[in-house]
């Protein structure tokens, strides 16, 4: 039990920091408080950025939207994929149509989708980025969920349930989904990392979030020119993104139930 708590703590700490960060920020994140690219000093532990704003305050301010958007993308993508995957395993005809559609969508790179949005709706905020990430991310997750659901759908207990006339949705939620817990939690962790990549890439390309909003990816881009003057202005947000992605994925791994022992005969 203790080991579980220890392995969950980095993720919990990151989530708390990202959510409560805006309340803890010592300075206003959009107001200059020191010289541009000032080195860390009294009152500005991580120095100043290109306009002399406090890097620490911007760091504390810039994680929440990223976290919320990434979690939303991961949960929605995994949820849709799980339901579609289970339904496809039960209804092969419908499954074939969904699969062909997924094949087509897989061909479209997410970065391309983001750029199209950036060009079509300049200054549109985060929502279109989230929608693009969901639409273009679901096909990958669907493939995995469908493959995992196929073997469960062929089990005896699903046969018995369909023989007693259970509706498709009842089969999906009662019989199949509970047995995909391991796969779905792993998938959720992977989709979270992927979502962090997509959202940060979008911010870096200035699609979705616009200056002067505090945002980790945007900070990297804005301060890249001054990396030799105050490296922390770039390093701190980069590390924050990496630690968030890795720690949350690790937490999902800890929460994933281990496969149960199955009887195997020798010979």
């Amino acid at each position: 039990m203790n080991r579980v708590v220890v392995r969950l703590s980095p993720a919990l700490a990151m989530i708390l920091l990202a959510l409560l960060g805006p309340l803890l920020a010592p300075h206003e994140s959009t107001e200059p408080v020191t010289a541009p690219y000032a080195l860390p000093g009294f009152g500005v532990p991580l120095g100043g950025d290109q306009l002399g704003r406090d890097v620490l305050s911007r760091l504390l301010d810039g994680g929440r939207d990223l976290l919320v958007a990434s979690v939303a993308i991961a949960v929605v993508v995994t949820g849709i994929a799980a339901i579609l995957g289970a339904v496809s395993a039960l209804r092969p005809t419908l499954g074939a149509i969904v699969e062909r559609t997924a094949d087509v969508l897989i061909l479209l790179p997410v970065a391309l989708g983001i750029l199209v949005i950036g060009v079509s709706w300049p200054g549109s905020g985060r929502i279109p980025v989230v929608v693009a990430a969901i639409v273009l991310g679901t096909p990958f997750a669907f493939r995995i969920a469908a493959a995992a659901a196929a073997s469960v759908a062929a089990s005896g207990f699903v046969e018995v349930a369909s023989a007693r006339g259970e509706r498709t949705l009842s089969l999906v939620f009662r019989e199949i989904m509970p047995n995909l817990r391991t796969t779905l939690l792993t998938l959720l962790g992977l989709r979270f990392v992927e979502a962090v990549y997509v959202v940060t890439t979008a911010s870096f390309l200035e699609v979705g979030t616009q200056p002067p909003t505090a945002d980790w990816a945007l900070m990297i881009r804005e301060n890249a020119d001054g990396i030799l003057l105050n490296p922390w202005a770039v390093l701190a947000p980069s590390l924050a993104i990496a630690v968030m992605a890795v720690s949350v994925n690790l937490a999902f791994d800890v929460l994933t139930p281990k496969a149960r022992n199955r009887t195997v005969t020798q010979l």
Partner: protein
Amino acid sequence: MTNILDILDLSIATADGHVLTRCDRLTAEKGRIIGVVGPSGSGKTTLLRSIAGALPNGVPTVAGSLSVLGKEVLALPASELREFRRRHLGFVGQDPASRLNPRMRIRHLLAEAAGDKQFSAQQILTDVGLPATDELLGRKPGQLSGGQQRRVALARALARRPDVLLLDEPTVGLDAVLREMLCELLRDRADKGTTILLSCHDIPLIEELADDVVDLGASVGVPAVLTEYPVPDAGGEEVLRVDGLSAWADSRHRIPILHGVDLSLTGRGALAIVGVSGSGKTTLARAITGLHKHVQGHITLGEQPLPLRVEGRDPAQRRRIQLIPQDSLGTLNPSRTVGATLSRPLRLFRGVPARDLPVQVAGLLHTVGLSEEFAERYPHELSGGQRQRVAIARALAADPDILVCDEITSSLDASTAEDIMNVLIELRSRRDLALIVITHEIPLAVRHTSTVLVLEEGRVVQHGATSDVLASVFHRG
């Protein structure tokens, strides 16, 4: 001459003292054929497997000595045991077809088993009575019939020319001609110096072939009461009738599985469907339950025609036929407790209100010989036999008229299988239940059913009273 095999006072028991097999004395010289006989549950399979150095799961206790070619196989370390098996032993278990890797071609399956370059795949195929053509060598196990798969499995065991060949029920599912061929082959191999042990229910075969017979005697696993097999009267009226049922594996009707199967079942009757693996037994069970998609023909339930697909049947029709599926690990939902599994059909078919569910669940568990504490358990906390009892209880929850049991005992040891069959037989007389028992174990079919239907490559080859049909199977030729 030294003994190839030497067993003295061997006894293998589970950790809680349940004796699995006992053999006082067994010695075999080079080139002898030993028949191992005894009723179900007397430990024939366990004995053969322990000669191959494989003990049942759960750290059993072993007393006495067992040596093969001068080595105590049960005491060998794992790597030496593998080496020993590779060099000296050939083992063909029950249902050997399932042990063939479905992705490998026959050519590679044989070469893998032989392990030397000079070996001739053609020769070994001719030995087991298969056509030695390149076409056959290029096929995969799924493209062979059940009987051919059995012979490929035997060919694999023979390919390395083992010193000791262990065969568990080699004739189950073979017709008279193949059985004769197997006899000649084994005799020939024995003359060339292979020591052969075979366990068999087929006494005439043992008499014809074996030099020595070891009788494992009174069953050690099955309580004496169960050796009487009550077969209740089939109660006259027809409950289920199937006419000209054909089934295909695909929607375009290109790959046939069943060809015009007819059968009839009377109330409280018990029908066995036997046949080798791949003969269409499971498809027939699924078609009757309405689960198989690509079917044609007519099914009549009572006096009313029954829609072929489960979607077309009304709840009452679905309630009357219940399936107990094959795979003992997949038969129960691993994520739900036994109580939850049993509650669902109770609510769906009988509308039992939530507050009465615990009582009803406990009642069902008692019916199949389990205590009510099992309601809290998950399937992985149950033994194979207990899981099958729960599966039976789940089917009974719907209050059915017909139970379709698809190989429900095939993954269980002999004594547990007997217990499960006895639960079913008792229910049959107490609840007016008709049974369809699908099995590849002919002895089981003989003891527990009144009529039998023999399937061969999707066709009914025999249908009639169990005693008549199986007598002719055993004594043909």
